[in-house]
């Protein structure tokens, strides 16, 4: 019976790793047996070797640094404006309507589509990329914050009023904290968009950063480096998302997560 299956595998941990192990083994075999030309399809061992040789750690850290800088810069600007705009729009309905209109119109345009015009306006430097990333972070965070404002439990506001709070103080002390869960969701979504957009922007127009590293490797025909770069990006994404989750859970939202048992 299903309920007893769990005690059949006393060590569930190794099951989790089995997936990776299987893939690595299959990968190595396929490449080693030359089913596909091994210069085009290198095995994991070659990738590892190349990683050590072709991309010195210093270079890698540089690339990561550039990419992270862009993501973080764009993200913070987008997040802060998103939250502020969202809260204002949600609290002051008239201003909200005015702000919402252009935002709703611009939102359907994916941030990627802004790349050409951003480059045109801001050049090939950092500002165009940060602008794109800002867009990627802003919309989901704004939308979620707004949603959070709309969905505030009216009883909370009533309780605040009874306790003597009104106006801005009510907003800051009751309404704003009440939207934290939604803002948190927006942040996670916005971060993953920002990350993907950074890579995209770097692929299209940059001379440093992880996206550039991959594109450049392709021009040089270093497929191992491409694969290496792809994996690094994946790991970095996972790691940063994990970090953000931990920060959110540990600090701002302990009260929320304790009750909902995440």
């Amino acid at each position, binding site marked *: *019976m299903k*309920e*007893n299956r*769990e*005690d059949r595998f*006393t060590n569930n941990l190794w099951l989790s790793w089995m997936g990776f192990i299987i893939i690595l083994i299959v990968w190595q075999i396929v490449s080693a047996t030359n089913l596909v030309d091994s210069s085009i399809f290198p095995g994991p061992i070659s990738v590892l070797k190349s990683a050590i040789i072709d991309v010195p750690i210093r270079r890698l850290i540089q690339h990561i640094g550039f990419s992270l800088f862009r993501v973080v810069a764009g993200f913070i600007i987008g997040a802060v404006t998103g939250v502020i705009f969202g809260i204002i729009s949600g609290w002051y309905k008239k201003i909200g309507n005015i702000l919402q209109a252009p935002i709703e119109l611009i939102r359907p345009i994916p941030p990627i589509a802004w790349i050409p015009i951003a480059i045109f306006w801001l050049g090939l430097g950092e500002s165009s990329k940060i602008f794109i990333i800002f867009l990627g972070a802003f919309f989901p965070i704004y939308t979620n914050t707004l949603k959070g404002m709309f969905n505030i439990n009216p009883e909370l506001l009533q309780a605040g009023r009874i306790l003597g709070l009104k106006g801005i103080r009510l907003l800051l002390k009751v309404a704003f904290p009440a939207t934290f869960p939604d803002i948190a969701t927006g942040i996670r979504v916005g971060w993953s968009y920002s990350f993907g957009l950074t890579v995209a922007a770097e692929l299209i127009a940059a001379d440093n950063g992880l996206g550039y590293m991959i594109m450049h490797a392709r021009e040089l025909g270093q497929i191992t480096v491409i694969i290496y770069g792809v994996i690094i990006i994946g790991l970095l994404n996972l790691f940063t998302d994990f970090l953000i989750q931990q920060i959110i859970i540990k600090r701002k939202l302990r009260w929320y997560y304790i009750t909902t048992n995440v």
Partner: protein
Amino acid sequence: MICEDVKNEVIVDRVTKKFSKGKVDDGFEALSNISFTIEKNEFVTIVGRSGCGKSTMLNIIAGLLSPTEGKVLINGKPVTEPGSDRGMVFQNSGLFPWLTVEGNIEFGPKNKGMAKIERQKLSKELIGLVNLEGCEKKYPRELSGGMQQRVAIARALAMDPQILLMDEPFGALDQLTRESMQSELLRIWESCKKTVIFVTHSIMEAIYLSDRIIVFSSNPGRVRKEFKINIHRPRQKSSVNVMKYYEEIYEAIN
């Protein structure tokens, strides 16, 4: 032994149920050495606190769970899996939201291979029995809680089971709806005479509905006491006799 089989439709024989979390000894004993019997067409209710294992007991009788020790016999044959002799009504109706009222009721017969015309006749009858004419083509989401449970009852009856298992079916309803559903249930039961095994934590509900009440204690679940309700139906919840039973059962639980 043979005589007992004939009289007792359901025999629960020293059933124990342990849930384990991985290692063999680290378990949670939900039921311990439960034994009781139920006669044909009896309305029996299992009463106890939340978490005393009464739902688990019902699931074992239904065949959805297997006992760790002991067995359940239905008309002499041991229960190993769900079957069409036992119908079940769940607390949250368990109605399939993607099927209409008709679709839900006809689900069981359709699986058995019943022809369309027969099915439709059957569902029409049952819908009439539970007083839901006009709702055939509605989806469960469009119905109130009480109506949903009525569909759930009709759906269970569509398999023509000998035994009807009901797991706190009125638990999610508001008090007023709950009370009207209780009378509804008695009416339906009286017209189609089945054995009913009912589970609830409401003592009053148990007294109102049942021929016999089995009180479970918790941690682990055990049979505390049994009560035979010797009052004529329909019963007055405020009557002295009922209140006497209430006090006794209340004491038995605590």
